[in-house]
């Protein structure tokens, strides 16, 4: 075989292009916005979870999703719907049973993975912009191989969505206020986000080889697939509704403003 520099299969050098990227558009904008957005949300959530205060409005039975279900000694009266098996301790969130799973669900979510791999880990920051790391093994080994556990986090998230729905239902006992509407919008969006999950799409019907043999699951898969195309939007919308719901309830509990009542 003749091996010359320019015959196919001969030289194996890539084109010598000095610039690391030749992109001229603002490719850094999207990762920057993601970085700021996720960073701000995580900061807010951390502060709120460890504030151990202003999470419940007894007269309307509003409980913020960040403290639901409330299971430490700090949860008094009607806030403690599921009992208080845990002691109150400053490092222990009031929703100690559910928050870790919610965190896991969002951390292993196929959309958030893309978002933080790009914006935080720079692997890669944007398409055709070099990876910020020397070596790369992706999700092939510890710890990232545990991203494959997304499905269990999804199962947990479904249960937690039921609890959140229950919170919105019990809050309904006392008429109707803006708080109720906010709680319902949040719950609906949480369901939309949870059901649009890629694992859900797979479980619903994606794993089948013959849709024609499973017409019901096929319809469910079609429905989830439609939601799934909006998974990114829903991921951001739910971050917004969660923070808004929490902030509104914090404001009410701290007496910064009053609930806008529509009925009663």
């Amino acid at each position, binding site marked *: 075989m003749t091996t010359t520099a320019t015959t196919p299969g*001969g030289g194996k050098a890539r084109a010598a292009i000095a610039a690391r990227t030749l992109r*001229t558009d603002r490719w850094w904008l999207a990762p920057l916005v993601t970085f700021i957005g996720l960073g701000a949300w995580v900061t807010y959530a951390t502060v709120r979870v460890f504030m151990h205060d202003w999470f419940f409005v007894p007269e309307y039975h509003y409980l913020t999703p960040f403290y639901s279900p409330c299971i430490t000694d700090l949860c008094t009266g009607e806030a403690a719907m599921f009992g208080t098996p845990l002691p109150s301790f400053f490092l222990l969130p009031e929703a100690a049973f559910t928050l870790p799973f919610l965190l896991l669900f969002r951390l292993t979510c196929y959309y958030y993975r*893309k978002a933080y791999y790009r914006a935080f880990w720079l692997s890669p920051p944007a*398409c055709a912009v070099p*990876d910020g790391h020397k070596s790369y093994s992706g999700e092939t080994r510890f710890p990232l191989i545990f991203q494959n556990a997304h*499905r269990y986090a999804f199962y947990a998230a479904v249960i937690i969505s039921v609890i959140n729905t229950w919170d919105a239902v019990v809050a309904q006992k006392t008429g109707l206020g803006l708080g109720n509407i906010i709680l319902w919008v949040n719950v609906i969006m949480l369901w939309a986000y949870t059901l649009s999950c*890629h694992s859900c799409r797979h479980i619903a019907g994606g*794993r089948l080889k*013959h849709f*024609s043999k499973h017409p019901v699951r096929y319809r469910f898969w079609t429905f989830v697939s439609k939601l799934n195309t909006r998974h990114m939007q829903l991921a951001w919308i739910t971050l917004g509704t969660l923070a808004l719901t929490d902030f509104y309830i914090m404001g009410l509990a701290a007496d910064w403003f009053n609930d806008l009542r529509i009925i009663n």
Partner: protein
Amino acid sequence: MKRRFRVWRGDASGGDLRDFDVEVNEGEVVLDIIHRLQATETPDLACRWNCKAGKCGSCSMEINGKPRLGCMTRMSTFEENETITITPIRTFPVIRDLVTDVSFNYEKARETPAFAPPAGVAPGEYRMQQVDVERSQEFRKCIECFLCQNTCHVIRDHDENKPAFSGPRYFIRAAELDMHPLDSLEDRKEYAQSSQGLGFCNITKCCTEVCPEHIKITDNAIIPMKERVVDRRYDPLVWLGRKIFRRDQLENMAPSSTVGVAGTSGGVPNSSVRPPENAPTGPDGHLDVSELLAPQQGGMSPFGDDMTFPMAPEQVTYHHPDPDRPAGH
């Protein structure tokens, strides 16, 4: 109107960006500019293209750093005073100028086990329902431009991953066949994970972003394949379900024994009589630019180079039809 272009010129031994001012007319695409350069200043500028309709996948290049098809990138999408930089795709070895050696992809294609119909079903007897085959059909739109392969940071930024990683184009191939109602190979999920390097993908979606056919590579192929692998490898609930109901299609899957194109899935290798051969190169190791080196301009004569034209009349074996004679004589 003339516009400023920077085109990478060179080969495996080196090269650089050269500046050109080229006339641009309304309605033109980047490939037209390459052609104009070939017709004017740089007749030996190498570039692959075929259809100029976004359907052959030959003209992949990087335009202002973005992997694009030259024939589908309109000049009207750029500002009038913008310099447009055109480089070959980075991930594969360069042959010359904008032409790269994409044989990595053909090697990976050959390694992927082919469609395997169930035993006893002859071609022509394949029957399937549209709903069942629909998902696979999306992936058949692929024009093999390899822009996704080029963009994927797993190999673009880490050349050492090439042996272990097949790339998004072959993940959609794996998904296409795994979802195909008539494919009988059961070990494609295992194969994708252990031999194609599915785990290297961190679903950052650049492949989907650059695909000119708008195939939802990540959402519809890679993530479903990852989930199918989870079924196989990491999900005890599914495992339990399989044991209890005993009717799951995944029941009797064995670990992958498929290597390369061996066995039933291999088909007939190299059915062409002619073995693959290298491009002919001149003494300097470069491909000939025939018009410059050949004794005459234009393409080689189909009559052979030793013929001179016009030929003497007695050499011509041609009988002029005699208009006076009746037809058939």
